[in-house]
């Protein structure tokens, strides 16, 4: 389990005492990670912005009960994934070409581009497992309709597809 650094512990403790600026610092530390994951899952900047804000508001609402023996980053990430999936399954996904907005700058455009063009379920499972390092059981908790074996099969197929596209 990842540990919290002293600095994170310090900020969380201040936030638990109601210090807003300390909490904004905590948000800033986790902002890119939360926003990137939301964007990889939803492919939509507006939704990702909304999800990120909702994530941090949820964190603020619950921070007093947060147990510092757990990883703060993983706790925040778990909340953002739940909100992302909730938003994602509200609507049918639009098909067709995806325009990556100019202010969204990825370091590895090819992988990100391929990822955003994956079908919804393949993308979700791949992002959660290979980017966010959730295991099959944790992913199943997020996606209750799928079995353990189905998740695994989808992940392996997606990996093979991406490897062939990247030329590995």
């Amino acid at each position, binding site marked *: *389990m990842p*540990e919290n650094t002293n600095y994170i512990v310090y900020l969380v403790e201040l936030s638990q005492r109601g210090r*807003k600026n300390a909490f*904004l*610092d905590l948000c800033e530390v986790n902002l890119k990670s939360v*926003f990137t994951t939301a964007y990889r899952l939803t492919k939509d900047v507006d939704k990702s912005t909304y999800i990120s804000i909702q994530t941090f508001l949820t964190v603020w609402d619950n921070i007093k009960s947060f147990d510092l023996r757990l990883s703060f980053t*993983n706790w925040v990430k778990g909340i953002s994934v739940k909100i992302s999936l909730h938003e994602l399954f509200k609507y049918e996904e639009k098909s067709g070409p995806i325009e990556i907005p100019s202010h969204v*700058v990825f370091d590895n455009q090819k992988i990100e581009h391929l990822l955003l063009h994956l079908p919804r379920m393949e993308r979700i499972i791949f992002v959660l497992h290979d980017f966010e390092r959730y295991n099959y059981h944790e992913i199943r908790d997020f996606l209750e309709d799928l079995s353990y074996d189905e998740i695994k099969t989808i992940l392996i197929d997606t990996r093979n597809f991406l490897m062939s596209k*990247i030329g*590995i």
Partner: protein
Amino acid sequence: MTCKEVHITLNDYIDSQLDSISKSEVETHLRTCDKCFNQYKRLRRFLDKISKVPFTADPPADFSTKLTEELMKIAEAEAPDANDKSKSSAKKLKREQAIQEKLSAKERIKNLTELSKKGLPIKSSPLKFISKVLLIIVMLAALAVVGYLVHSYSKKNSPWKVTVVQGNVLISGQMHENDRISEGQDMLTEINSRAIVIVPSIGRIEVEPITQFRLIKAEDGDNRIGLERGEIKVSSLEQLPAFVTEFKNNIVKFIGGTYRITVDEYGKAILFIESGIAEVHQNQNIFMIDENFICHLSGEALPGIPYRTDANEIFIGEVKKIESGAYTRNSIDMLINTARNLDVLTLLAVIPRVNEQERVSLYDKIFSFYKPPPNTTLEGIIKLDQKMLEAYFREIEWQL
């Protein structure tokens, strides 16, 4: 464990989801099967690449303002804290972001249930003998001939598609823009000319200017070219040694990955393995070259000692001295003192070029980084036992 079983469990293995017995079985198989080992390396390369993709999507510029506004709405109900001084420097926050990204890679759980495996049904076709035995024999013979012809035809893997990127390309002396090359034909790129050749089921060859080669064979599992001169870059997706480049007395077999070969007019070549692995066959000897290594090859002499592209200059200088035979004991000491763990395959390749006493020193250095596999001994390495040298190479390559 069979190749098929390994293929099924490879993702579980790499995700650390196998129990210790299955894990050990997979590892035993991977150490002895090039095909499966290369599948493993391919998957590992992919996941390494993915693990290095950072969180770099930037939220919109006004995100912080929006978030602050939302928080302020909530906070209005709470007591304001005007004297809050905890806002930290941007530098500190940036460093903390990096630390958090690193920490967020959670450990994967182990010992999970293995994917249930289903065997393929085996079809059996009962043969009924009827009275006209002779007719059946004739029919079977005819079928065998047709089957052989179909099989031979289906094994053909040519022609290869040629796309001219720039300038002029000659195939069997004729100028072509975009065409195909078949078995037995030569291809030549002129000055400032480049082409891409697609090898079906294998990958592609990027052909640089003033490069000449002959397509010697194009069959499933055996695709070979004879490189006369020039430079090619081969990108192969095939996990078997299915693509071969020949020049002078050397045969280079590639097992997946990307590699570049340059051959000059005297037949001297430089081989650079960007990814994957290559075997150089020369006079019944086999030399293994790993990814990120460069090796100089010439027609008659032994292959050069491969070294990593990022090795330090002193190390490379001493390797060159040993390669030429003009070295002293000091060269061995310098080599040992400057070698990093990444350079041990070079040290292993140096062993056959030096005397027995120097071999012991090199072995000690290699041993300090990587223990030899079972049944590989100091005595065997000093006596240049080929099997032990190869086993040690594979063990180090595995661990690297």
